[in-house]
């Protein structure tokens, strides 16, 4: 959040540098759609233009993209894939007019994407640390990227712990991925649901209850906690983490805000001293507190 270097200085009468159009999205093709949970689907897509595809693939975990459904509008969405993966996809809950329009698309349909935007998680800075991922519900979508990235670069990180909670077993995100992580050696993956359903033999309780489970020891020293989830879950998990001895600067999350441009111009996502789109969406809890707005 430091005032970044001033690169383009405009002076009256002197034409500034010609620049590219940051608002111009590129055409994308929908490949396939996978149902995740109720109202949440994963959309696999690729850019029509190969160069655009390889340029986009340089994104970092925690960044986001702007998706255009022409005639309806444009919306920001996090990037659940890791750049180490082959495919590009979004996982989107149907909540407003744009996301509804996306949900109606069929494979082969075209829309448009621009990005990636935002700071992303500083995964390089976290090398040599323990990583603790805590996700409530669809909060796993933005964390998925960092988890897959960390596992693909396993040698750079110490312990990797994943805690995921959902309301019901039917609402667990990325179920096949989760089951994989549970079986992956060197990954400490715990899953819980608020309300069990028939056939559920796993844990029951809020995600924070997993921290006190017998046999679970959350890494606190030399650790970074990634927390994403609904506001209530966020507040309680933060309390738990602070009580365990986590420093505020070692807890990171990604914020979501109404955004129109994604490039620090439209003003909608500006909170405190930060434009969420360019200074975020990843902030430490220490920064989030200073921004002074509800999560």
């Amino acid at each position, binding site marked *: 959040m430091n005032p970044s270097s001033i690169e383009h200085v405009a*002076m009256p009468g002197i034409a500034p540098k010609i620049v590219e159009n940051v608002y111009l999205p590129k055409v994308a093709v929908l490949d396939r759609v996978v149902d995740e949970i109720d109202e949440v689907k994963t959309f696999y897509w690729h850019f029509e233009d190969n160069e655009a595809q390889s340029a986009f693939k340089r994104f970092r975990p925690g960044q986001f993209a702007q998706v255009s459904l*022409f005639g309806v509008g444009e919306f920001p969405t996090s990037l659940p894939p890791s750049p180490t993966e082959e495919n590009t996809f979004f996982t989107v809950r149907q909540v407003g007019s744009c996301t509804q329009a996306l949900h109606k698309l069929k494979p082969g349909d075209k829309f448009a994407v621009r990005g990636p935007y935002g700071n992303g998680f500083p995964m390089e800075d976290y090398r040599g640390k323990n990583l603790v991922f805590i996700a409530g519900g669809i909060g796993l979508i933005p964390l998925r990227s960092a988890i897959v990235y960390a596992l693909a670069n396993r040698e750079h990180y110490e312990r990797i712990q994943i805690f995921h909670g959902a309301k019901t077993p039917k609402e667990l995100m990325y179920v096949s991925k989760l089951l994989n992580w549970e079986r992956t050696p060197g990954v400490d993956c715990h899953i819980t649901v608020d309300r069990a359903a028939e056939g559920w033999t796993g844990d029951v309780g809020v995600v924070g209850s997993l921290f006190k489970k017998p046999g679970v020891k959350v890494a606190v020293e030399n650790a970074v906690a990634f927390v994403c989830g609904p506001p209530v879950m966020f507040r309680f998990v933060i309390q738990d983490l602070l009580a365990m001895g986590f420093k505020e600067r070692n807890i990171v999350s990604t914020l979501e805000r109404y955004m129109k*441009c994604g490039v620090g111009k*439209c003003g909608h996502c500006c909170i405190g001293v930060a434009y969420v789109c360019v200074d975020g969406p990843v902030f430490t809890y220490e920064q989030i507190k200073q921004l002074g707005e509800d999560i």
Partner: protein
Amino acid sequence: MKARLLSRGDVLKVVDLLRRRGYEVIAPFRGRGRDTFFDPVTDQNRDRIQIHLPNPYYPPKRFVFPPIERLLKVERSNGDLRIQSTYEERKRAIFGIRSCDVAGIYHLDRFYLGRDFPDIYYQNHRKNLFLVNVACTDPELDIGEECFCMCTDTGPAARDHFDLQLFDLHGMGAQSVKDGDDFLAVAGTPLGETLFADPIFRKGSPEHVAQRSAILDGVRKSFRPGTTSWFSAAIQAVSRGEIPEETWDEVGNRCLECGGCTYVCPACTCFTVTDRLAEGNAVERLRIWDSCALSGFTRMAGGFNPRRAVHDRRNRRFFRKLAHYFIERELSMACVGCGRCAAVCHGDIGMPSVVEMIRRHVTARSNEA
């Protein structure tokens, strides 16, 4: 910077010069009553251009950042999408822009072009824009009740960011009327200086420059002595988070949420983006001025609004404009002292009044301590 003299009778010839160079010239005019406005100059209205007048209510911001602007045109056929950027480039000059509005345009330059992701639409409007600033030297006509450029350090005579500045040497405090029928023209850019090749410009003398200073001294004393002199202290208090919550409550209680302050502000930058259906199944993407005063400004899909209360939103506006962090970020301040927000606000919470409220509350609190 080079300076020249220009006879009063030749001032509008600057407009002619620019028009001959292919500029569409925008200039201030007077409507009925006290209404003033910027309009394109034609052969018919050229003689009615005003040199001294109350600054028009609508700032010239719209010539670089239109209220509605088309960004893209998208053609849809057989499932295919063809997306085109739609740029508007025009060679334009604004004649008679006030010093505060020059600072406003400079702020927009800093905001849209001075950081990562420079805005090409803004740049296209801006790159061929020629600014002829007229310094405010007539205390009756130029300086309004609400003007506080003295506090924002943007007037009454801009120091830079114009191509050409015209300064009326017949202003108040002029020592003699003998030389008083001239304007001092100052070039702010090499492009502005090229105008001096025209014979309407004559060599000046150091006395003319001294006269300019004397007039400015006089003009500075004619501003309404207001609480806006607390402006820099207010910046400090806002930046340090020392404003009591009740100040924002009071501001919020008086805000009618009309958004007027943001629409007349020469330094407000926010916009929303919307799609519009066009002919032949095409779609146009537009950007439209938006306002942080409006309740939907931060409302997300699904209805969650992190900034619900009015006072949160008002706090936001003044924080964004006054916090030192943002002044440093853009190397310019998002308030230029034009006073339009004060003139437009029904609840009397324009910038000067809010600075006064901050002063009252902060000093009351420090008296308690």
